[in-house]
């Protein structure tokens, strides 16, 4: 596509992300089942739910990593299948797993991202410096990432995802395995991005405190479907006057233990928890 061309104009009132009956099957397993939702521009939107509820699968489809089985979705106004390239240019993605390369320095990781997104050469140095400063990593830029702490790696990954000034940032479990201090630093970084860059932020989380503190709205997923969507306060009110978000979670997911995501997922979660920790 030629530079500057727009296939679909998206204004400030159009949803940043919208899905309609989006589904993904793995053989007989329905991981995401006809999900329809809208995320508004400038919102911090949280997906909550147990392991295997379909959060990560949904996010993989929205970031073009995984093709849907059926249904449709638009991200930043672009169709996730027909306009995958445009979607990729419009979003930043911080995977749950460790995506910064430990064998490179912080600066080199940022340089790699800047080049993959073809940020013009004359702007590269300045944008990298800005991102480092914003994520409070300037002093550690020339150290190998394998010597970083978990919180620093997370902040570096956020810096990498925002270099190309995306409209939308997608983060899978942004603070899993971090100590409280590092967790708050990541929250501050996410809030700062929303305030200064007017970014829309979509996160998945297991952490009800994070969902409550950080998110404007939440969608609770169960068995691949969305059970309920609303602001944290609203959801709590619906369950009871004194209800916490944990109560909301228990109320909608039921007392039954959800089928776990299996060995592979457990292994990945633990590994990434270890590496970030």
């Amino acid at each position: 596509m030629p530079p500057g061309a727009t296939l679909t104009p998206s204004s400030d009132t159009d949803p940043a992300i919208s899905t309609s009956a989006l589904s993904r099957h793995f053989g007989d397993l329905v991981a995401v089942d006809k999900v329809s939702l809208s995320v508004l521009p400038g919102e911090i939107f949280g997906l909550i739910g147990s392991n295997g509820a379909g959060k990560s699968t949904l996010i993989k489809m929205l970031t073009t990593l995984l093709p849907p089985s059926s249904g449709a979705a638009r991200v930043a106004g672009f169709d996730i299948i027909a306009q995958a390239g445009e979607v990729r240019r419009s979003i930043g993605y911080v995977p749950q797993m460790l995506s910064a390369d430990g064998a490179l320095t912080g600066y080199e990781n940022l340089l790699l991202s800047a080049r993959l997104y073809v940020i013009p050469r004359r702007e590269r140095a300045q944008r990298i410096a800005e991102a480092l400063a914003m994520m409070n990593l300037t002093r550690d830029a020339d150290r190998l990432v394998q010597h970083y702490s978990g919180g620093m790696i997370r902040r570096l990954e956020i810096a990498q995802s925002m270099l190309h000034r995306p409209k939308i940032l997608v983060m899978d479990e942004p603070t899993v395995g971090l100590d409280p201090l590092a967790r708050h630093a990541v929250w501050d970084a996410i809030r700062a991005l929303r305030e200064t860059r007017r970014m829309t932020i979509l996160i998945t989380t297991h952490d009800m405190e994070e969902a409550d503190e950080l998110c404007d709205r939440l969608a609770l997923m169960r068995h691949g479907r969305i059970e309920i969507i609303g602001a944290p306060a609203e959801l709590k009110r619906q369950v009871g006057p004194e209800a916490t978000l944990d109560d909301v979670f228990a109320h909608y997911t039921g007392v039954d233990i959800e089928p776990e995501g299996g060995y592979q997922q457990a292994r990945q979660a633990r590994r990434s928890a270890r590496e970030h920790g």
Partner: protein
Amino acid sequence: MAKYSDISPVTDYATQVLAVADAELRKLRHDPMELLSRAVQPALWLVLFGQVMAQVRGLSAGINYLDFLAPGILAQSVLFVAIFYGIAAIWERDLGVLHRYLVSPAPRTALVLGKALSSGARGLSQAVVVYGLAFVLGIQVSLEPRHVLGIIAFIALGSALFCTLSLIVACLVRTRERFMGIGQMLTMPIFFASNAIYPIRLMPLWLRAISRLNPLTYEVDGLRAFMLRNGVSTIGIGLDFLVLITTFTGFVAIAARLYPRMGE
């Protein structure tokens, strides 16, 4: 809105290919031990295997066996370095580093070509080691500029080709354990069903036919013509090059199709 480069799609593409290759080479610079450890194997082959096999009469008919062997060992060490890329790709996938590449707007062929290019550069560093060994062993190495250029071209192309093959296998098997098995199953036949350590004329007919389908045969033939002072190609440099470049192009197309599956 994300900014686009205002230069051209071609330079954008080159930037993305070089970004991937540069990251690989920077890792090598941070940890140069890898280069040293990779020098051991060709040394063993040339010094131990080569010295002993040079005594076998059928092998050294009319030629100095060490001269014959050196380009074959050069090709082998390049092959072994390149095959390592598949396991590295699986490692990157398990960690999550791969997802960073796959969510970027870089065309999938650019991602594959970047890896292939860095494999070419790694291969050239192997060449420096093998040339050094060859000097020490008194092998008649040619340093004529056009020969050196020929060597660079064939090594870069050969490493890129086998790196891409390795990426294809990685995309198909997806786990480190399976790749280890398949990798062994792949490199040994590629090596032995080629002209790397013995001439094709000594092979039984069925093996000759297989060796003709083996890209390594064409790489070794090219290296043999360019590395030695009076080296000759038995297949023809033009055909060697054509087979390698065609196979490489096909492999890149396949790898670029399969690569996104690694992120699913």
